[in-house]
């Protein structure tokens, strides 16, 4: 039975090395934190907090975007990509290089790194953030974790990435440079396919040379639709949930979601320690 404890988490001050705009309201922040960078896996997250503040009080969960090596080639820093939506993320946009933030992580289970011929990553909005590191892992470009995890390279890695409007697309070129085949959609038709990103799933699955697996992250309605499409296509699918969290380490029981067990019964499970990645078929969405 897997343990659901944040046993590899580290808590301490982290220094901001960069905080730059990627797209409308979207920023990439680089934090020096070798203890987290060394251990983190794709799909894991960390909690970030403005130290000394009591409003906002709680940490905010942000997914690993990328691990950056230091001068010696060892994992040294972490990139996060965030959308400025509210109290904490708006304040974060004003944080300068050299500032100190407080972080704890790595947290959560991350994506299963099981062999797959075709990995289809489905992102809605800011839900693209966990996929850059995952793509690197599956393209054999980087090994994550301590000890570093060996991943059998996939033959094909695709990203279906949908946003409301084209100016919200972030990091598309980075994905392309790795060798990911990128399929874009916008709800307003300003770029790529006009409509919902879930419409792209079936055509991309059909292009698969071999067995396909879908991983998705984004708004719940998108993940619910993706889960249903994956079921119809008979393709395995995992979702990374974005439940609101207060602690990220399993002690507050805020972040629960109804998850079904083998017998079909549901129980509230903590997404911070038992997730955020779950088998799509096990999630009771609403």
């Amino acid at each position, binding site marked *: 039975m897997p343990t659901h404890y944040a046993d590899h988490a580290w808590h301490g001050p982290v220094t901001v090395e960069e905080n730059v705009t990627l797209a409308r309201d979207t920023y990439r922040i680089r934090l020096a934190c070798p203890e987290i960078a060394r251990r983190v896996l794709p799909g894991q997250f960390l909690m970030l907090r403005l130290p000394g503040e009591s409003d906002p009080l709680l940490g905010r969960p942000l997914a690993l975007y990328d691990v950056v090596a230091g001068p010696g080639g060892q994992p040294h820093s972490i990139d996060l990509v965030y959308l400025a939506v509210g109290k904490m993320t708006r304040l974060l946009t004003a944080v300068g290089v050299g500032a100190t933030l407080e972080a704890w992580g790595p947290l959560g289970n991350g994506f299963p790194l099981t062999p797959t011929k075709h990995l289809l990553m489905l992102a809605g909005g800011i839900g693209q953030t966990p996929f850059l590191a995952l793509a690197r892992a599956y393209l054999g470009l980087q090994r994550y974790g301590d000890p570093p995890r060996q991943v059998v390279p996939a033959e094909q890695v695709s990203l279906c990435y949908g946003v409301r409007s084209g100016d919200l697309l972030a990091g598309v070129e980075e994905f392309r440079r790795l060798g990911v085949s990128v399929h874009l959609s916008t709800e307003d038709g300003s770029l790529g396919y006009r409509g919902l990103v879930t419409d792209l799933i079936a055509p991309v699955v059909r292009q698969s040379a071999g067995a396909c697996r879908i991983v998705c992250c984004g708004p719940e309605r998108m993940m619910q639709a993706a889960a249903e499409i994956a079921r119809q296509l008979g393709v395995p699918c995992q979702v990374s949930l974005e439940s609101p969290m207060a602690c990220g380490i399993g002690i507050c029981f805020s972040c*629960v979601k109804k998850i079904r067990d083998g017998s079909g019964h549901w*129980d*509230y499970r903590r997404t911070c320690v038992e997730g955020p990645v779950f088998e799509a078929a096990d999630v009771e969405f609403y």
Partner: protein
Amino acid sequence: MPLSQAEPVRTAEARLDVQLGRLRLANPIMVASGTFGYAREMAGLVDLSRLGAILPKTITRQPRPGNPPPRTIETAAGMLNSIGLDNDGLEAFVERQLPYLASLKTTIVVSIAGESCEEFVEMAARLEGVPGIDALELNMSCPNVSHGVDFATDPRLCERVVSGVRKACSYPILAKLTPNVTDVTVIARAAEAGGADALSLINTCLGMAVHWRRRRPVLGNVLGGLSGPAIKPIALRIVYQVAKAVKIPLVGIGGIAGIDDVMEFLITGATAVQVGTANFYNPTVCTRILDALPAALGELGMRSVADVVGTLDADPSPLHRD
């Protein structure tokens, strides 16, 4: 004596142990029930052996799924929660969580909540003699579960629960009270009369958050309990009032996030404290407080925690700046 003239005390000499009725703690820093999981969750981040006591999440007789999400929402300098005592029930706790807790050297205070006076007594009797338990805390004040019966708002019920538990087991008893009453001292005296070893003050303050554009409450359960720095002044006020009303020791709870908060509670009349919400946003807060405690005592020229308790100078003249 002005602070600056106080004798410096070498920190290694400071005595941190405190006595809560029949319960002795190695130091006054406990973690509050419901804010530290079942402790195993924190083993990777916190040296659990340093804590004065661990209070695992409240258990009920039967399993409870808890309330639907969203269960928490941040508010100004605090948070509202309506977890609803999500737990797998007493038997699952004894079987799955207690063995780990029992393996720790730390004092374990098990928090229990009954739906009736009889159920509190039954739970205490069931836990009597079970290895790994050092004391019980009676959570008579969870705002998310009582079906109109709140054992900490009715003094007669409160006394019955405490005296019933006292007869049913040999553990020291902490009675945890709610601030959501007109006069807490009435309830505090009832718990004292029932035989409580100490009083834990306070549980969360009943509150609410609203999405005005959607005309909807934010929490799935509509109402929730407010915790965090926002409630510290309320908790201090209650410790102050209850300290004058009862003779048994008090455990201060509410918004404690650092050494200054701890010292404020001790001086106001708490013999020990529990750290709650701060564990969520500063997972190593308790050990940071413990690191700072001897020096803080030293600053007051005190050699032990017990010497500081209740030393508030109630002289109403304003403080002079130094």
